[in-house]
């Protein structure tokens, strides 16, 4: 498929914005560690991950921008909070705690890998091509975060405690990554986003439990039917608006001009 039928455009752009917004906010949060990482070598590595996420976001915004008739920067910086589609896990601050930063990255990387795999078999060629290109980089992210989870889980007593605390706090929030959005089913049926969210959830939890077992850590979560709306439908945590205000501080001085 080379073009998107009009009736599928709203859910399809929601899908593109969900991945772009997730990646931008994750990259944004991670980039805040640049210059402040726990070890110089990791500072450099984590900063590369942040750049990857922001660059991936930029590519998805471009795809969405073509359908919406707007620019990547306008999508990244120029929307109202309820127009963003990111999930809660990328909104919560890490409070400068490395365990939280690694844990957040781990949950998101595992999710992204599965989401991108589904996108590579999309019948919308531009999406399939883009997801294919990004998948290779995402594999490096996964190796990086999985190794850190194991390294810290099997590190000192203090490291294990901190990691367990981060998992207990962030795992329930991470489940909002799976919040279905309006029209999702129509995208699946049309082959634009093939596969099943339930299968994806099962694969995600299995993979995470495997790694946590190696790390001698545990996770207890159960997904339910979300009664409340979350980020995928424009309802965000209390952390989101301050994040957005910080991110857009300079942009909003003179919106739309070159900086």
């Amino acid at each position, binding site marked *: 498929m080379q073009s998107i039928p009009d009736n599928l455009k709203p859910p399809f752009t929601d899908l593109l914005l969900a991945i772009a917004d997730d990646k931008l906010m994750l990259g944004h949060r991670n980039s805040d560690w640049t210059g402040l990482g726990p070890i*110089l070598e990791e500072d450099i590595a984590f900063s590369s991950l942040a750049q990857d996420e922001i660059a991936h976001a*930029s590519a998805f915004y471009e795809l969405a921008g073509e359908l919406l008739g707007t620019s990547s920067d306008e999508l990244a910086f120029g929307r109202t909070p309820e127009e963003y589609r990111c999930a809660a896990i990328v909104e919560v601050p890490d409070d400068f705690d490395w365990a939280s930063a690694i844990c957040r990255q781990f949950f998101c990387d595992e999710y992204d890998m599965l989401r991108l795999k589904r996108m590579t078999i999309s019948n919308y060629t531009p999406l399939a091509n883009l997801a294919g290109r990004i998948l290779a980089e995402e594999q490096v992210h996964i190796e990086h975060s999985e190794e850190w989870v194991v*390294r810290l889980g099997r590190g000192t007593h203090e490291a294990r405690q901190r990691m367990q605390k981060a998992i207990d706090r962030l795992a329930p929030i991470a489940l909002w990554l799976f919040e279905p959005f309006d029209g999702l089913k129509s995208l699946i049926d049309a082959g634009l986003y093939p596969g099943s969210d339930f299968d994806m959830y099962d694969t995600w939890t299995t993979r995470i439990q495997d790694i946590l077992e190696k790390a001698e850590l545990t996770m207890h979560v159960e997904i339910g039917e979300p009664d409340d709306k979350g980020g995928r439908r424009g309802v965000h945590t209390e952390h989101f608006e301050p994040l957005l205000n910080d991110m857009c501080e300079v942009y909003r001085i003179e919106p739309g001009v070159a900086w």
Partner: protein
Amino acid sequence: MSGSGNVGVHVDHNIQEDPEKLAEFQQKIDDGMLIEVDDWMPEAYRTGMLKMAEHHANSEIIGALPEGEWITRAPSLRRKLALTAKVQDEVGHGQMLYRVSQDLGKTRDNMLRDLITGKTKYHNVFNYPAPTWGDIAMIQWLIDGAAILNQGTLADGAFGPYVRTMKRINMEEAFHFKSGEDMVLTLMGGTMKQREMGQEAFDRWWYPSLMFFGPRDKPNAEQLPPMRWRMKTVTNDGLRQRFINRFAPAALALGLKIHVVEKDEHGMVTSKKPDENLRLNEETGNWEFTEPDWEEFFRVIRGHGPCNKQRLALRRLSYEQGHWVRNAILHGSKNLPPAA
């Protein structure tokens, strides 16, 4: 983005160096050969090079802080990516320079501890504030521009590991400078608000840039060990003049005005007037200018600058917050199976 050619060399006269070896060492340097870490060198050279490389490394990681504060606020996706990559480069430079220093006999942890306890110093220029996006543009243009001039001459030095590191760093600095130039051009070609932001930031950074090269030289600078041993190859005043000759006309061409300023204790400009001494001397080909306020320079070096406390506090926080992580790596379970 630093360059620390101004770290003094302390010659301990109680250490009697073998005069024959000392003469051979000097001859090697005079012949343009490189000194390697395992070669014989006078103790004052080893400690001087360590001090210089360590100061440079400290400056790189402290230098990451003022710009790092603006990564989350960068106003476009392109700038956000570029600034993250730029600050990451500075951390990378720090890492390379700590490796050079480690080979000269000091552990990284000791260097980081000495930095946060104030036992060792970092470049003075990072004790000034960056209150707007315009400051980020000016830092990348002026300070990285100054660093390229300085480090270009340090790459002509005699200590092999430091020289090779300078060459690598300078290639990356050239990108930083280009990015800074592009940011300044965009601001100065932009709206009234953007041009004002650019001018105000320029007023804050012009004099710190001139002070970047260190204080006025002693009259016999070229005979003293740092230059005799080619730890540095050009005097402070020589570098400063090269900088002004390049940046004064470039700033004027962009529509910036060069002011002599007074600042409050927070580093914010309280009054300014055009630099009346600024002119191109046709005879010498050099730009003349009003000297920086050297009292301010020494006050800031002694720890009383606008941001000394803030920069060190953040560096200390980062060191302390990372302590358990380093501990886990050093003392965690051995022989971990691969995660995959």
